[in-house]
């Protein structure tokens, strides 16, 4: 990576001293590659990951405390040292863990790390391995040394060095791809563009820019206006551009492209924005008015040739057609907005749906607040625009240029288009309609606001539209509308917020502008039980429903959960939970189950007597509602009292009944999850046996998605704690599929499967089947799994297997390298792994021959090294019984 970093990465040249690594697209992709490498390092090369580098790699970070890792190197130095401003990392294992912890800040951390360590290879391997251009002898030297002495460090160093060189190669290749895509600007091209734009600038409404000036009048003979000492950096000239709608822009044109500089009074050469390929692209991004007027300009321009030229610069491909004589006869064609980013109506729309769906699942089921990033679709070449496009453009024109009456007519007419269709959604955006619609929200005209929100509510189903609405500040205005006395308006605003707030940034905006508090306020309506409601009360309930919908979307962010709680949302949600209507219950339960990831909510769900209602709704008609109820129970039933409450309110039977609905996988995942957690209580297991849930669970061991399998196996694992159930599982043929699942890769699934198999193995009859299926070997091979949880769970499961298998000693010996493997796990740092492995070793040691083998593998020194930890573990762990420990100790004494 050394060569790639010195040659390919773009270091800022303007600053003095160390220079910084800015986030250009090229650097970003370099960094991402490096991160990927470092992150996966410990899992791919576990041996090399523990290599202690002699020189530490330091970061600059913002946290303020001092932390050190427990892992230490030979000299007792911590491998990770976090002080006020720096992080020092001394092994790859720690580095990859650090990057994991950094999450979305990964990029920043990597950037800081590389800035602080210009040549990381030297830091990692030592000064002899600096990046040298030309022939590099270090590898050969290393090889020599490795041959001479067999120091394991040198070998590992060699391996790391090779890996790093591989990465270097990879980085160079990918940056080459980037560089080759770049456009180089020339002074002549910049001059042309500036002259052209000047032609359309000046005072007045319809010009594209107010003014556009060079900072320097003097032009060098090579066409540049930048001073010579800046020309060496490829800079051509500087511009001051005044658009109609934003502050003046200070722009640098360089051969690499066009970007904003930091000028205020004096030129500051530092780059402040992304690099655009030309001036028009940059202005287009900065000034909506520019985009709008540019389209008009062409229409008004008498000189078609001039207009032609204009487009040649603005968009390479779209305006191919304008070159044909057709233009003159049909001037309307030229009005077309040059950035049409949509085409191919059918296909993208369906893709969009799919990705959207998977997105939402991942969001609601886990805490990951991933932004759904929809790539902008660029149109290539020219296509026939659908007729809707022109009609929508016309309507937007009337909305913009009409009084309230015309606006309302145009808004109503726009609703007649199929707004669920992506063509129409993007057409509205591309003709500048979103801006107009959002501006209407800021007016006093209630009818216009309602009409606009009705459209926004529909089109915000599209994720690109959602982003644009957020970009235009639509959320802030809609949050304000929540205060309006008009209830229809409140409902529409809340429903639109519910749609827009499906990505993280939007949810944050809603919170930051006080939206959560207002939305919680909407929930406050009349008690729902009352029979005859006035129309006014019904309206209030509708407002509450819309508020709940918006809160449901917002509750996917952890901070919003907290905000809802602080705004007093929990008692209100508890009250709405008593509603008899599914359309109210779905968002309410949806919000609750989303928030149940927080302990405070789980406690509230228990104490505010919500379990009763959740259980009641399990037996409804609506599958979505059932699913949310089940997953709320899933999340809450970690708590013992809650599990008892579920049983008291009769929730176990509906759960068992829902198991038979195996079509709806999401529902099934939630239901099996709830059963799993409920089955932690023995009384519940007895109930489940009555309802024949165990038999159904066994059926679900095959042909199910992983989310379902994890829960099914988890539930069976809990049920197996009772001898009677172990027999049931055997009788309905549950053991072969369970053993079969031991070959999987999903960590959560493996932890559950090993537990279930281990529990089954406590019956000699079950053990026979497991043995026949070679289950013990499979369990043993899971000791090699990188996750400590899996290792521990597998080791625990091995214990009953050895206890109950016939000829256990012989069986254990037959696993090649098995005993060595289990002894080596005594070096683990994880206490649970140590405890489980000790237990397994206790069982193994009952066989004299095996005891001899493990003694050969050095079990005694390892155990005595752990002595303190071990006794602590043994005392705290009731799974291990004292006699065995004593037995082991005596055996130890015999041999040691």
């Amino acid at each position, binding site marked *: 990576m050394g060569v790639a970093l010195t040659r390919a990465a773009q270091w800022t040249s303007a600053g003095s001293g160390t220079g910084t690594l800015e986030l250009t697209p090229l650097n970003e992709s370099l960094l991402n590659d490096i991160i990927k490498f470092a992150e996966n390092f410990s899992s791919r090369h576990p041996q090399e990951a523990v290599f202690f580098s002699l020189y530490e790699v330091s970061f600059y970070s913002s946290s303020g405390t001092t932390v050190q890792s427990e892992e230490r190197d030979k000299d007792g130095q911590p491998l990770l040292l976090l002080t006020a401003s720096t992080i020092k990392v001394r092994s790859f294992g720690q580095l990859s863990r650090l990057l994991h912890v950094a999450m979305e800040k990964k990029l920043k951390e990597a950037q800081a790390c590389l800035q602080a360590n210009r040549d990381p290879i030297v830091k990692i391997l030592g000064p002899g391995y600096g990046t040298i251009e030309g022939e590099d002898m270090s590898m050969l030297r290393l090889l020599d040394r490795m041959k001479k002495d067999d120091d394991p460090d040198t070998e590992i160093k060699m391996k790391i060095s090779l890996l790093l060189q591989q990465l270097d190669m990879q980085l160079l290749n990918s940056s080459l791809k980037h560089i080759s895509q770049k456009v180089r600007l020339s002074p002549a091209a910049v001059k042309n563009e500036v002259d052209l734009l000047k032609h359309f600038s000046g005072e007045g409404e319809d010009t594209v820019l107010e003014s556009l000036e060079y900072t320097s009048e003097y032009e060098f003979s090579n066409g540049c206006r930048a001073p010579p000492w800046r020309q060496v950096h490829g800079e051509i000239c500087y511009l001051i551009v005044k658009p109609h709608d934003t502050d003046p822009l200070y722009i640098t044109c360089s051969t690499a492209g066009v970007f904003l500089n930091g000028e205020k009074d004096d030129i500051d050469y530092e780059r402040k924005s992304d690099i655009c390929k030309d001036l028009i692209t940059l202005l287009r991004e900065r000034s909506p008015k520019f985009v709008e007027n540019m389209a008009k300009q062409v229409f008004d321009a008498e000189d078609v040739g001039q207009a032609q030229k204009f487009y040649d610069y603005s968009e390479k491909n779209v305006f191919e057609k304008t070159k044909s004589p057709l233009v003159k006869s049909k001037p309307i064609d030229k009005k077309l907005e040059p950035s049409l980013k949509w085409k191919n109506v059918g296909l993208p729309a369906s893709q969009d749906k799919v990705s959207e769906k998977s997105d939402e699942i991942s969001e609601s089921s886990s805490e990951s607040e991933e932004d759904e990033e929809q790539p902008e679709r660029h149109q290539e070449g020219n296509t026939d625009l659908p007729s809707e496009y022109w009609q929508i453009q016309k309507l937007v024109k*009337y909305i913009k*240029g009409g009084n309230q*009456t015309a606006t309302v007519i145009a808004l*109503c007419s726009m609703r*007649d288009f199929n707004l669920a269709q992506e063509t129409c959604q993007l057409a509205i955006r591309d003709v500048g309609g979103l801006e107009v619609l959002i501006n209407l929200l800021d007016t006093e005209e209630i009818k216009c606001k309602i009409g606009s929100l009705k459209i926004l509510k529909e089109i915000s189903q599209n994720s690109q539209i959602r982003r644009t609405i957020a970009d235009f500040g639509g959320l802030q205005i809609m949050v304000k509308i929540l205060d309006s006395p008009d209830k229809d308006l409140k409902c529409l605003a809340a429903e639109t917020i519910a749609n827009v707030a499906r990505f993280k940034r939007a949810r944050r905006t809603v919170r930051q502008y006080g939206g959560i508090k207002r939305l919680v306020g909407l929930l406050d309506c009349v008690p729902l039980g009352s029979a005859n409601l006035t129309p006014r009360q019904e309206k209030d309930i509708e407002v509450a429903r819309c508020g709940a919908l918006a809160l449901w979307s917002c509750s996917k962010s952890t901070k919003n959960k907290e905000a809802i709680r602080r705004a007093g949302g929990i008692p209100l949600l508890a009250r709405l939970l008593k509603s008899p209507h599914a359309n109210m219950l779905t968002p309410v339960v949806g919000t609750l189950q989303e928030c149940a990831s927080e302990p405070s909510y789980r406690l509230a769900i228990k104490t505010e007597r919500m379990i009763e209602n959740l259980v009641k709704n399990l037996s409804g008609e609506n599958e979505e509602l059932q699913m949310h109820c089940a997953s709320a129970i899933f999340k809450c039933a970690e708590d013992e009292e809650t599990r008892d409450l579920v049983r008291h309110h009769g929730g176990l039977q509906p759960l068992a009944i829902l198991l038979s609905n195996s079509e709806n996988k999401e529902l099934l995942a939630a239901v099996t999850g709830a059963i799993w957690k409920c089955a932690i209580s023995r009384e519940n297991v007895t109930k489940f046996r009555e309802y024949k849930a165990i038999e159904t669970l066994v059926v679900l061991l095959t042909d199910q998605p992983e989310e379902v399998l994890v829960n099914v196996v988890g539930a069976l694992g809990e049920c197996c704690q009772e001898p009677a159930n172990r027999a049931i599982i055997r009788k309905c043929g549950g053991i072969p599929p369970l053993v079969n699942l031991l070959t999987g890769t999903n960590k959560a699934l493996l932890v559950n499967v090993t537990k279930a198999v281990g529990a089954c193995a406590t019956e000699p009859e079950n053990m026979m089947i497991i043995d026949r299926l070679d289950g013990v070997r499979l369990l043993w091979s899971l000791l090699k799994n990188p996750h400590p949880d899996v290792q521990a769970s597998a080791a625990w499961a091995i214990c009953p297997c050895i206890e109950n298998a016939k000829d256990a000693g012989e069986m254990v010996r037959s696993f090649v390298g098995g005993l060595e493997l289990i002894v080596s796990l005594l070096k683990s740092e994880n206490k649970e792994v140590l405890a489980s492995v000790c237990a397994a070793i206790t069982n193994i040691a009952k066989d004299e021959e095996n005891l001899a083998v493990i003694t050969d593998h050095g079990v005694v020194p390892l155990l005595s090294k752990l002595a303190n930890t071990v006794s602590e573990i043994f005392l705290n762990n009731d799974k291990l019984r004292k006699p065995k420990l004593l037995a082991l100790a005596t055996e130890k004494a015999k041999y040691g």
Partner: protein
Amino acid sequence: MKLNIITSVITFFYFTVNKIEVECLIKLFHTLVVEPSDRHAIIGLDRNMFRNILHVTFGMTDDMIMDRVFRAFDTDNDSCVSVTEWVEGLSIFLRGTLEEKMKYCFEVYDLNGDGYISREEMFHMLKNSLLKQPSEEDPDEGIKDLVEITLKKMDYDHDGKLSYTDFEKAVRDENLLLEAFGPCLPDIKVLNHFCMKPGEKENTSAY
């Protein structure tokens, strides 16, 4: 008292507005009406006074619409809004059901009273609704287009004009279209002000 009799009669017919409210309306009427010098003249609001009230109190601006509102109020066509007509009209303004409002609006928009809103009438009512753009060759083109859009949206039987049935259907489908051709009902904010409790009203009614 004469006032009481009128009140009871009116309350009987227009029960959508309650009795106290009717009294308030009548009181308001009498403060607005200037006592005629001629004892035999009809007591009521003439066109100018009425238009002034529409403008100042209800925030209407379009002259033509205001004229039509006057005609809609003045059910007996005597060019004067009597106290009964005043209460009738305002009961729709303030407490009207959607049904009543639709009938009233249709009457306002049906300029020649032939039971249909024709293309020409629409054009007439919408002609000032768009900002004139100097670039367009035909300044009326936009308005004509707007009329076509409206017909496409509301003319269910495709006869090129709006009957009351068309209008009713369109408005029931989309309430925003009630005042499709220009504001002829009081703004919601004016309404809120107007519908305050009589006690509160005394303090604020400056007009």
